[in-house]
């Protein structure tokens, strides 16, 4: 053996050879999209969580002596037509809407990712059947379904959970399926299987961590969609019932006063918009950060 290769250690110079990948923290801090999204979303979530603490009144407490008052020391954002403190209502409404948003996405996300992974990996009859079901579901108009459901199960959030549960999983299934199909053709999956690892293990410990990031990013914008759906339903009077506040019904109620007290509708509207922006930015930022080089 010639001199150049006797000690293997000489072949690699660690300082130059192994490029340091910036840590998650470093990448996170350098992504303006992620930072903006994270800050905005955390702020909104924090405010919503702290509603009982920083909301100064009960959201349903009426004060008929002081209706439609503008911002003041007593009421930071003024009061609505029944004298209820808008600030408190805004916070509690946020609580409700965000909660519904996250919960409604949980099942579609889990189920969709699961079924997508299985279909993408095993293919065959299961895959064909599931994909046809996906096509049917996608063809269905969402709001028609949800209004029908509301009439069946009654108003309130149940309808939303069920409607999303039935329809929203397909997107996750599709993206995860494609990702899995791509991964399945890659050498490192072949190596994992060839190494004697069981298919279950390969699927859940090897492939899934790679395919799930896309689903997570989509989930962020999905939460926004749910909130919009809740808001829309609230606006239509089919969502969360009064007197419990939600942004949609606040906007709907505020509609009557649009000429005189615009802020009644505008403020919750702004809250919806900001939440949407925050979650979208967060989703985009995560997409940037989670992408392996």
């Amino acid at each position, binding site marked *: 053996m010639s001199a150049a*290769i006797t000690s293997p*250690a000489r072949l690699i110079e660690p300082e130059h050879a192994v490029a340091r990948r910036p840590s998650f923290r470093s990448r996170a801090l350098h992504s303006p999209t992620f930072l903006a999204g994270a800050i905005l979303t955390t702020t909104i979530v924090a405010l919503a969580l702290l509603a009982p603490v920083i909301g100064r009144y009960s959201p349903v407490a009426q004060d008929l002596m002081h209706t439609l008052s503008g911002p003041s020391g007593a009421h930071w954002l003024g009061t609505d037509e029944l004298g209820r403190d808008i600030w408190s209502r805004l916070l509690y409404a946020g609580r409700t809407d965000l909660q519904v948003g996250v919960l409604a996405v949980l099942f579609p996300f889990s189920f969709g990712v699961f079924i997508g992974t299985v279909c993408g990996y095993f293919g065959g009859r299961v895959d064909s059947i599931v994909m046809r079901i996906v096509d049917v579901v996608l063809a269905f108009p969402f709001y028609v379904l949800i209004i029908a459901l509301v009439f069946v199960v009654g108003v309130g959030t149940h309808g939303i959970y069920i409607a999303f549960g039935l329809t929203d999983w397909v997107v996750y299934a599709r993206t995860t399926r494609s990702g899995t199909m791509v991964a399945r053709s*890659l050498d*490192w999956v072949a*190596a994992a299987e*060839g190494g004697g690892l069981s298919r279950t293990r390969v699927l859940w410990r090897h492939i899934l961590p790679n395919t799930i990031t896309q689903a997570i990013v989509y989930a962020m914008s999905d939460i926004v969609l749910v909130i919009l759906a809740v808001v829309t339903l609230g606006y239509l009077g089919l969502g969360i019932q009064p007197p419990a506040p939600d942004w949609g019904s606040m906007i709907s109620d505020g509609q009557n006063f649009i000429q005189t007290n615009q802020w009644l509708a505008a403020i919750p509207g702004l809250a919806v918009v900001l939440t949407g922006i925050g979650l979208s930015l967060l989703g985009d930022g995560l997409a940037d950060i989670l992408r392996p080089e």
Partner: protein
Amino acid sequence: MSKALIEVDDLSVTFRSEHGRSLRAVDDVTLQVAEGEFLGLVGESGCGKTTIAKCIAGRVAPSAGTVRFDGRELGARRTTEDRRAIQMVFQDPYSSLNPRMTVRHVLSELLTVHRLVPRVDIEARCGELMTLVGLPRGALDGLPSQFSGGQRQRIAIARALTVEPRVIIADEPVSALDVSVQATILQLFEQLRSRLGLTVVFISHNLAVVRHLSDRVAVMYLGRIVEEGSREQVFRDPRHPYTAALLASAPRLHQIELVRPMVRGEPPSPIDVPPGCSFHPRCPRSEEICAHDSPRLERIGACAEHLAACHFRDETSPEAVDQP
């Protein structure tokens, strides 16, 4: 001659194309690899060498014929021991490692699942594997994206070695690497062979690499073996015109004159294999008989180990070399 560790008998692999036509990727191939032997499988794209490798490794099921390992026939479902015994190293260093798993995770998972070492010794074993392939221990913490192509190949080799295989099938392991890095990986293969006594099936289109490392060589064209023999037999005394053409076309540092192309045209589509000898439309030596009579892989003269599938196998090629 040591016993055959891998025996491939009358192996054929046929794929269906979209239009219902069949594509014979591997056509009736019989091959043995002795224990501890380094077999070079040579051929250009579409010759079927990768498909054979996948068959041996169990990733592709044969349409006909058998693959035997250590005397036992390997069926569609392989035992974990059989799967461990034959490991593959792939060509593309950039898709052969899970981008989200650290090196330590990859190696220790295999060690744990197969219970190869007691839990306390896992870390030490991972370190040993790194040293074996010439990487620093610090590499265990890294993710694939932090490594260069050559380093990734070392990691892939380490992964293959983790399960203590008896056979490594390397599918063009250095083709995607720079020249200076190729040298290090080739040295690694040599060391592994001498130190660990591994049996290696080395697939490559690069004749220089194959000649450097192999004990025996098999040349493939359109799914068939056209020539087979010891390294010196095939390289010094090629008896199939395709082998001679490959040799003549191999890049050489000090080749002053332009190499005259010895082969006409391009390989036909594997769906449309020519009748008779599949090489005859491109062959400089072809004659009438070649168009309708497909030559079998047969020994040359009295030599049992040197085989060629050519009607004119007994003629020496102008490419043959005289000096020792």
